[in-house]
């Protein structure tokens, strides 16, 4: 038991990154009705920008954090305003367009930032040791920082969704785009904003992830993206909070699986997720929809 919880605490930075990425995927899915496969590569571009700012100008990593998030925000805005908005309404078509974006951004990153992989820095060094229920645990301060930032940001987005006029607009757009447009909501602006915010969320998650692993390269977010997509389905796509809870559950299962066998832990994780989705296809927090003929 002690080691399961310890593995979970060591993976706290992963929980933060996944929760933020999943939040972004859920936001674009709800408003724009498309699964954004380009989320990870946009976030990678943000991490590259932040790392390059630190390496080239010697600026503080705190400033670089905001520059990286800003770049992701702009890329998201650009994607929606220039490309996604003009795509036909089929869901597969929009997925394909995000794939085209992945290809382009993946090729652009080495041109803009050079071929050499960058490094990223921890925002806080050192560990925190504490005892819980009479068991001793240790967590890096950077992980604690990541998870608290993620909690604050996700909490902020949720309160904005449920308590502000902007959130009302987003929820209306998510519920029915045409009716929302008839009610005087600028749905174009809402979708563009949700793309931008979800990209920025992904960028923040990726920078926090990189600050722990310190590696910056093009494929750094591959596994995070797959886990986020899985947690999106695991939580159910009916609500905003379901996917986020799913993204917390997956690292817990993973740390449990790592205890059984280190090598087989990803396989055990995927099999468990598969079984859960087979039993509840609508996700853990979804309702099953009945289709009329």
């Amino acid at each position, binding site marked *: 038991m002690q080691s399961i919880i310890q593995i979970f605490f060591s993976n706290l930075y992963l929980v933060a990154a996944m929760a933020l990425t999943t939040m972004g995927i859920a936001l674009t899915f709800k408003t724009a009705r498309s699964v954004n496969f380009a989320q990870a590569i946009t976030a990678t571009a943000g991490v590259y920008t932040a790392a390059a700012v630190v390496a080239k100008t010697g600026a503080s990593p705190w400033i670089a954090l905001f520059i990286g998030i800003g770049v992701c925000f702009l890329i998201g805005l650009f994607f929606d305003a220039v490309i996604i908005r003009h795509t036909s309404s089929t869901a597969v078509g929009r997925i394909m367009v995000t794939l085209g974006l992945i290809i*382009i951004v993946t090729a652009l990153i080495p041109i803009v930032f050079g071929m050499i992989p960058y490094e990223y820095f921890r925002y806080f060094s050192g560990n925190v040791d504490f005892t819980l229920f009479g068991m001793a645990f240790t967590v890096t301060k950077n992980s604690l920082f990541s998870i608290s930032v993620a909690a604050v940001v996700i909490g902020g987005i949720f309160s904005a969704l449920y308590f502000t006029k902007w959130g009302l607009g987003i929820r209306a757009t998510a519920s029915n785009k045409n009716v929302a447009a008839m009610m005087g909501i600028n749905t174009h602006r809402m979708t563009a904003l949700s793309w931008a915010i979800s990209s920025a969320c992904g960028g923040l998650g990726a920078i926090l992830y990189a600050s722990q692993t310190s590696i910056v390269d093009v494929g750094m977010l591959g596994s995070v993206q797959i886990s986020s997509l899985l947690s999106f389905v695991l939580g159910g796509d009916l609500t905003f909070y379901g996917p986020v809870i799913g993204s917390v559950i997956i690292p817990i299962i993973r740390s449990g699986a790592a205890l059984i066998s280190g090598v087989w832990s990803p*396989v055990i994780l995927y099999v468990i997720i598969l079984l859960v989705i087979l039993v509840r296809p609508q996700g853990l927090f979804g309702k099953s929809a009945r289709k009329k003929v």
Partner: protein
Amino acid sequence: MKNYYKDLRDKAANPIIKYTRNPLFGYVILALVLVVIQLLFMFTDGIISLTISKAIVQTMIYTIVCLGLSILIGRAGLTSLGTAGFMGLGAYIAGNILKFANLPFIFVVIGTAAAAVILGVVVGFISLRVQGRALLIITLALSEILIELFKTPNEFTGGASGFTGVPFPKLMMFIQLNRETTYFLVLVALFIMIVLTLNIIKSPTGRAMLTMASSPPAAQAMGINLLKYRILAFVIATVYAMIGGALYVAYVQGASPYSWTLLLSLNVLVAVVLGGVGSIPGVIMGSFVIFGLDLAVLKNIAFFQKYTSASVIFSGLLIIIIIIKYPGGLARLLRDINVGVKKLYVKWRVYRYGQEA
């Protein structure tokens, strides 16, 4: 009206038109062109480079994989992101049969297809529970399970360092193929697969699948067994993908777990959608654009040789532009061009001979 039927009778009697109207005519011509290209590569010096030959083989292998997915999407209305994992499994099974038993290639194909049927039935049963995006993600998870299994150290796949030392396949027990002649093996396999696909599409099975795609409840009401056709559609898609994998391992002589990624599955999906869902010429064009264009064409243009990333950006832009401007895919573009040319011809006739009575 009388003239119209007379025209039709004349056309049916004309042997040339009789052959050109055959649905296989275009594919036979394409196959002949591909044979000539490879012969030029083998027996002349430098007209056709090795890169082009490799690009054509790659396109042909992925066309087989894409044809399977095209039946799944275009006919049965189901989607899958598990292609990479299935193709990888096919590659490892075929690679092991070739390496340790060195049987003739036909037995390799039979062994791979048998495994594919089992896998397809499993995925088909899953597809009854989940649909749409969830099915996309579920097949992705299945593929990830397979890929993780490939990466764990074992004798079957060679672990993370990859599987090497596969000999070129043998044909009929005694003809040993080499790199040049494996090209023809892939070509023959592709041709057989195209004929098979044409027959599946035209058969009652294909029509039942098409009904199921447009409305599952209505199809059920018409007496179509959803379970049977969903499983069949997935079996077809996995068999195609795994035979593609078998041909891949036979040509490349090895496989690495890092070549079977989410990006490969997405690329196959893009090739199908880009070409035009459910259309065989479209799938051929789509897989050429995705898998062959870079190697065969762009690598020979001076601008793209200087800036290697530019060719990748070019294909990314091409995908976006075609999907925005032509949601029907390249097949639709081809039909529009065809119609446009016919209209121009009619205009020219009117201009030249005056209005017909």
